[in-house]
């Protein structure tokens, strides 16, 4: 073997050993590597045995090269030894030990996410009582006694006279807030609502709403559109389309209903969207001047928009939940799946 060839061979062993070592991740493999390179029948030993056969003038030089190689290999081995703990055989295919932690109810996580989108835009968060009076739930919202629009909300009453009731929407909070603070402001309200609708897959007599109200001197319908389109896209994804169509609520005018392109079929039509490609998700509009009048604002100088949406419905669409009854049933398998 000539000198040049020997040097090449040493280089080759260096390269090969380093390459193999870099792929090693277990203690047992590391030992095999040691035997292959540093063991009694290993590469290093074989080279050392060549020293005696080499011509005298080269022995020193060769010895030095082999020693270099040995140091290099030992360093590689040491480095790996420090990296891998030698704990015997570790079967990493076995399952990890799961950590169980508490979780929030899907209604809470949905509410928080919705709240976050609006608070990022500077909206404050308010709450109000579940037990309301006829005045806050209907009258102040431009629905005097015997107004036919009251039929839109079937109501649970707490007294025979019908003056005390369970709120049918979170809109009374609008009135309560406006009685307390002066414009301009922007708020949302979250809470529990009650309607005398028999329980089925899409109706629940007890449900939750989020309400919004922005009031100032130059608020217009375009702003309502801007804010709500932003909300829908933040919540459902930026790919969705948002549609506004006319609707009727006694406390807003013009009133609108907001639909998003179906989150299930993408707008081509399926059972969720009744083959329409659109899903109604919230009602909104410009606050009716008579509502401002009821709270003592100067109705000609103040304008605002309001909106309201069902938290359950929004969460159902987002997570593909098919039955509203899941929410108050509290099957822990449901809570743990949907909660994030």
């Amino acid at each position, binding site marked *: 073997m000539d000198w040049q060839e020997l040097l090449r061979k040493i280089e080759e062993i260096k390269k090969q050993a380093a390459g193999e070592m870099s792929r090693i991740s277990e203690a047992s493999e590391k030992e095999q590597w040691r035997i292959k390179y540093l063991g009694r029948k290993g590469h290093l030993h074989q080279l050392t045995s060549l020293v005696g056969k080499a011509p005298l003038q080269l022995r020193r030089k060769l010895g030095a090269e082999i020693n270099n190689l040995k140091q290099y290999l030992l360093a590689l081995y040491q480095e790996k030894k420090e990296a891998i703990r030698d704990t015997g055989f570790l079967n990493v295919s076995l399952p990890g030990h799961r950590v169980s*932690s508490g*979780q929030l109810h899907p209604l809470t996580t949905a509410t928080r996410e919705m709240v976050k989108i609006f608070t990022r835009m500077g909206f404050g968060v308010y709450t109000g009582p579940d*037990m309301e009076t006829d005045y806050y739930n209907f009258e102040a919202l431009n629905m005097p006694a015997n107004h036919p629009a009251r039929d839109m909300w079937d109501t649970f009453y707490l007294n025979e006279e019908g003056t005390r009731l369970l709120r049918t929407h979170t809109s009374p909070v609008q009135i309560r807030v406006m009685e307390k603070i002066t414009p301009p402001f922007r708020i949302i309200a979250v809470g529990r609502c009650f309607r005398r609708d028999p329980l089925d897959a899409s109706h629940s007599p007890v449900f939750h709403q989020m309400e919004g109200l922005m009031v100032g001197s130059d608020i217009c319908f375009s702003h309502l559109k801007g804010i709500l389109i932003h909300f829908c896209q933040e919540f459902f994804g930026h790919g969705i389309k948002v549609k506004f169509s006319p609707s009727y609520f006694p406390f807003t005018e013009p009133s609108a209903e907001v639909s998003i392109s179906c989150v299930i079929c993408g707008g081509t039509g399926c059972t969720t969207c009744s083959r329409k490609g659109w899903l109604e998700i919230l009602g909104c509009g410009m606050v009716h001047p008579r509502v401002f009048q009821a709270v003592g604002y100067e109705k000609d100088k103040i304008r605002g928009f309001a909106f309201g949406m069902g938290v359950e419905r929004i969460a159902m669409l987002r997570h593909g939940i098919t039955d509203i009854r899941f929410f108050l049933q509290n099957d822990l398998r449901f809570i743990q799946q949907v909660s994030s």
Partner: protein
Amino acid sequence: MRYPYSCLRQYLQQPFSPEELILWLDTLGLSPQVIKSDPEDLVLEIETPANRPDLLSLIGLARAIAPFGRLTVQLPRCCFAEDLQEVFPVNIENIEDCLYYSCRVMRGVKVAPSPSALKDTVEKLGFRSSLNVVDLSNLVMAETGQPLHVFDLDRICKKITVRRAFSGEKIITLDGRQRLLDNDILVIADEEKSVALAGIMGGANSEVTNQTVNLLIESAVFSPGRIRRGSKKLGLSTEAALRFEKGIDPQTACFGLERLISLIKEMAGGHIGPVSWTGEREKKLSAVELDAEHLQTFLGSEIPGDFLTELFSQSGFSVTRKGNVYQVTIPSFRNDIQDEVDLIEEVAKYWTYERIPSCFPSVEIIPTPTSRQYLLLERIQDIMMRLGCTEVITSSLIPEDWEKFCPDKCIPIVNPLSQNASRLRSCLIPGLLEVVRFNLTRGRENMQLFELGTVYQYQESAEKLSLGLVVYRDKAFFTLKGIVESFFAECGIFSLEWKSSTGCLENLGQLVEIEWKKGKTGYLVLPGEKVLKFFDIGSAVAVGEIFVEGLEEQLFRIKKFVPPPRFPSSRRDFSFIFSENVVWPEVEKILRNLHLPVESIDVFDTYQGEKISPGCLSISFSVIFRHPERTLLAEEVEEFTRLIAKTLEENFSARIRQ
């Protein structure tokens, strides 16, 4: 009612396609639903808003779509001659209840079952076919929106009075049911009896039959509120009531009567008497001003003047313009338009919402604060989640037979849907036990749950926030107690008092009250047999409630930083056998009173069983010693340890467990 395309087309001069019809109705937000679609016809249902009685008619809907296709509305013809002198006397007792009442006599009419063409039309409109004159009255209601009633003239005595019913008065309505009336309900009466529930349904005693030859045909405008009250009270909602409670105008009443008379004459002959009427026939048309500048600032979109003038004239509104201001006279059938905003909405709808640009408002940054109540919710939910509890949310409406498991009385619902949801919960306990039951039957084993919800107080007629807790597992009580202690520790409260002496709630079980600063701040319950049996739960359960509203200050306190101690601590573990009714807080108190440099005393194990004498309890606890200014010497700690052992022996006759 239903809207057949074939019928609708008759009221518009120019043609339009069924597809256009659906598109226009969609644009108006009327959510058209296709009921029937075949090559011959398209039948739709729509969602009419509560303020648009005019849309409950074919002519009204024709008017609504006309501006989209620049179509011209044509009203059906009324063509007949009066050939009787007979004016039937009519009287309104209170004009507030009935604005206008009119009728005509027809004699010699051939009442018979409807011919098939009429029958088909009426059925297509969504009504049940009956005798020809009745079907025609329904047809005219569908056309014009005016409910009309046909009486058998010979069964009506002398005159018509519109009056309130007497208390206890009875009438059998056309549906064959006897109705008990009172002073809230408006009736049509002759000299002897009530012959109809005004605006709601006719009476059987004056019903038209196939024997009838002489008719009295009524067209009126009743007070919307009065009809609504009556209809609600009787639980009787009819097509007529639906229209009256939203408001009808006298012009429609006049036109409806003429149209019906004309159709009856054409189909069934007969002689016609003049209109007898009372009340107010002419309604002054209201004018509403629309300022183009308001329109623009309200919508955020500039809408050309040409569009406005054309829309208004297409909709049958007459309009004059002075500069930027449009003076719009509202036709009587559009009682929904009263203010400028109503006109703004009208314009926005036809301009279409899609064409109004969307943008963000530019506002001054004036912080709108978030209410403490909401922040409190989030804070507590986060703490409980950290403590390993999963949140549940249960209904506020609970069954009647759960009330006995609440420590306080519950507020009843006046009109519940069922007994299963007829009370407002006054505590969260039964709801939580139901969640445990539900999940146990689905194979769940261990549970640590919380609910942060409103409870409703009967006495104060108020509501408050409560934190309910339930633990289902081994050693449930101490797990729950630990969760409660950790929760209060998060609030910075370490001085709770646990009062087990407060006894037992009859239906619920053993009660342990939690006090903080001498006030009741919650309670735990070890449920008894009765409640466990009711909810079908094993005994490994403990529940409780914390009244979080008093803790607000604590939860929002700003924590002050104390530098960590500089000198090391020494820990010693002890195992002592006490009498089983030892009161642990007292043990702790006595040890603290030794004034040793003790940082903490923590129980880490207890034992009761074969290895120690009966009636005894072994408690293992650790004590951490630390001096603030120096490192303690080993000999000092040994001395403390001996002192502690001696104190426990002397005060509690406790023995070191070997």
